């Protein structure tokens, strides 16, 4: 029984199963399917962002910009160049990855708030550029795009989205567990120490941005194909804030956490849609409440449940040690 809880594979498998079964469960309801698609798009983006922030420690408040780039890449390549779907979708990732490289290069030298502002500027600039580059992006009216014939039906396309989501979860899971992921965590913990152990910090930091942008671009591409239309208003800075909220609420540096966050932040606005004007307040209260009372994110509920006993012991020991120090420790014993 205990092994079932500690081993992640069955959980991953269950998740995949749930994803596959979902369209059957909800039947043909277009509304629920479109919510589900948005969950997938945001889950991919949140995981990619988590790789950057949670594992790599590089703050980005402009990831919605990468989503827009992905969406526009798909639209432009399909309508202007007429490239086939199977080529366009990976290309949306590649082109966004190249943009990520351009952002990552100056970001290598920055950290903390400075990086936050640069990425924020990127997230703000992309919609403005899209709005003003009429000849390429269609300006204010946006760009329509058509899915290929063999995917024109929504219930067919949803399997592409599910497949991509599962594959990306699997790839990111492996990246995190690999040499690459360990290097990212080392950089997050201490750049100096990482450098001293022989990690090429600038290279890995840039790589982090490129990988994160790549997967976000694919998510943006999927979104573009699903809606069949891209416009400058699709992803604003507000989306970037929400993405940041997702990974913190779900739990930083945890792939299931990012998925949980994506689900919550996609479903919550839908649930509160009927209460006009209250959506922002409710999302805000949820964010504030979870950070105040569950600072490690919702995923910590699960972890607490999983390894309850050993962690409690460690805590007790630490407490004794601390209180000893606080009250004077050895000095008090000696009656000084």
């Amino acid at each position, binding site marked *: 029984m205990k092994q079932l809880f500690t081993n992640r594979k069955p959980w991953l498998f269950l998740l995949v199963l749930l994803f596959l079964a979902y369209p059957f469960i909800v039947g043909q309801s277009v509304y629920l399917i479109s919510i589900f698609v948005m969950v997938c798009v945001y889950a991919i983006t949140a995981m990619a962002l988590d790789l950057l*922030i949670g594992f790599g420690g590089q*703050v980005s408040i402009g990831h919605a910009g990468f989503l827009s780039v992905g969406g526009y890449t798909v639209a432009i390549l399909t309508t202007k160049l007429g490239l086939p779907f199977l080529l366009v979708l990976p290309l949306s990732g590649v082109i966004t990855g190249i943009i990520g490289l351009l952002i990552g290069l*100056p970001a290598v*030298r*920055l*950290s*903390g*708030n*400075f990086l*936050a*502002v*640069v990425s*924020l*500027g*990127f997230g*703000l*600039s992309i919609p*403005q*550029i899209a*709005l*003003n580059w009429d000849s390429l992006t269609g300006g204010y009216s946006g760009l329509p795009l058509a899915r290929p014939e063999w995917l024109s039906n929504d219930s067919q396309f949803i399997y592409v989205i599910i497949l991509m989501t599962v594959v990306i979860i699997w790839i990111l899971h492996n990246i995190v567990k690999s040499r690459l992921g360990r290097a990212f965590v080392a950089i997050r913990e*201490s*750049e*100096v*120490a990482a450098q001293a152990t022989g990690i090429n910090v600038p290279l890995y930091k840039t790589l982090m941005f490129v990988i994160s942008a790549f997967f976000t671009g694919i998510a943006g591409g999927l979104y573009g194909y699903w809606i069949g239309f891209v416009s400058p208003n699709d992803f604003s*800075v507000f989306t970037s*804030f929400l993405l*940041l*909220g997702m990974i*913190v*609420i779900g739990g*930083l540096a945890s792939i299931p956490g990012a998925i949980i966050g994506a689900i919550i932040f996609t479903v919550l606005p839908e649930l509160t849609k009927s209460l006009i*004007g*209250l*959506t*922002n*307040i409710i*999302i*805000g*209260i*949820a*964010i*504030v409440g979870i*950070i*105040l009372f569950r*600072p490690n994110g919702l995923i910590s509920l699960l972890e607490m449940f999983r390894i309850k006993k050993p962690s409690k012991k460690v805590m007790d020991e630490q407490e004794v040690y601390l209180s000893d120090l606080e009250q004077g420790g050895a000095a008090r014993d000696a009656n000084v």
Partner: protein
Amino acid sequence: MQIIASGLIFGCIYALAALGLVLIFKTTEVANFAHGEMAMITTFISYVFLSKYGFPYLAALGLALLFALVFGIVVYVLVMKRVQSAPHLNQVVLTLGLFMIFNGLAGLKWGYQPTSFPEAFHGDPFKLGSIFISTNEIFTVGLTLVLMLLFFLLFRFTKAGLGMRAASQDIMASELMGIKVSGVFMGAWAIGTALGGIAGMMTAPVTFLSPNMMGEVLIIAFAGAVLGGFNSLPGAVIGGLIVGVFENLVSYYVAPELKIVFTFLLIVVVLYIRPQGIFGGAKIVKKV
């Protein structure tokens, strides 16, 4: 000349907002993303005093600033105090949550319809050398300069300023030295919010009063603060001014829609050359 002058005037508003941001960051190490929304609420309060109760401008300004002081303390005590030692990202996301709550509440209470907001001083613009300038604009510039000087002196020469500087360096050590850290932080939040409120009241006549009026101002103020190093009060003011002038030049010579793109391009270039900002000082890694 005229373009640079009006850029400087708008830069002063950015500088005021940036000053509050930096003040809070310098003492408590929290980058407050809800700053603009708190300023917006303060401005709405002053508008209520002005229009509903018919107070004169300066009285409404004073009362609103009083409200801002209390508002800052309430936010600090109720929310920010609990996450004082939490990771920075948690604090940032928390302020984003506050941002959404304040924005939603203001929308609920006052609606999203923009309303006009009076200026501090009326009167036609007059000619000064080769530029046109109005009394209100002079008031804005003067206020910014006075406040900047005041805070610079406060930080440098008073006990409270010393406490703020000490608390920002090491919370525990300054507590052991007898500084009431939570009191100092409370003060920083109160004053920072009041500064934001002043910036809000200077912005409102230009952009009209609405719950979303401070969004862009805050982002540009943040950019200006970062440009100045995010840790230095004169840096915040100069960063704000640079951004204001640059933005105005871009909107005149290139295109008004692209000003944000170019502003951030400028910041990327500056930060690439000097990653710690113009007045940031050397970056030292204390702990490995």
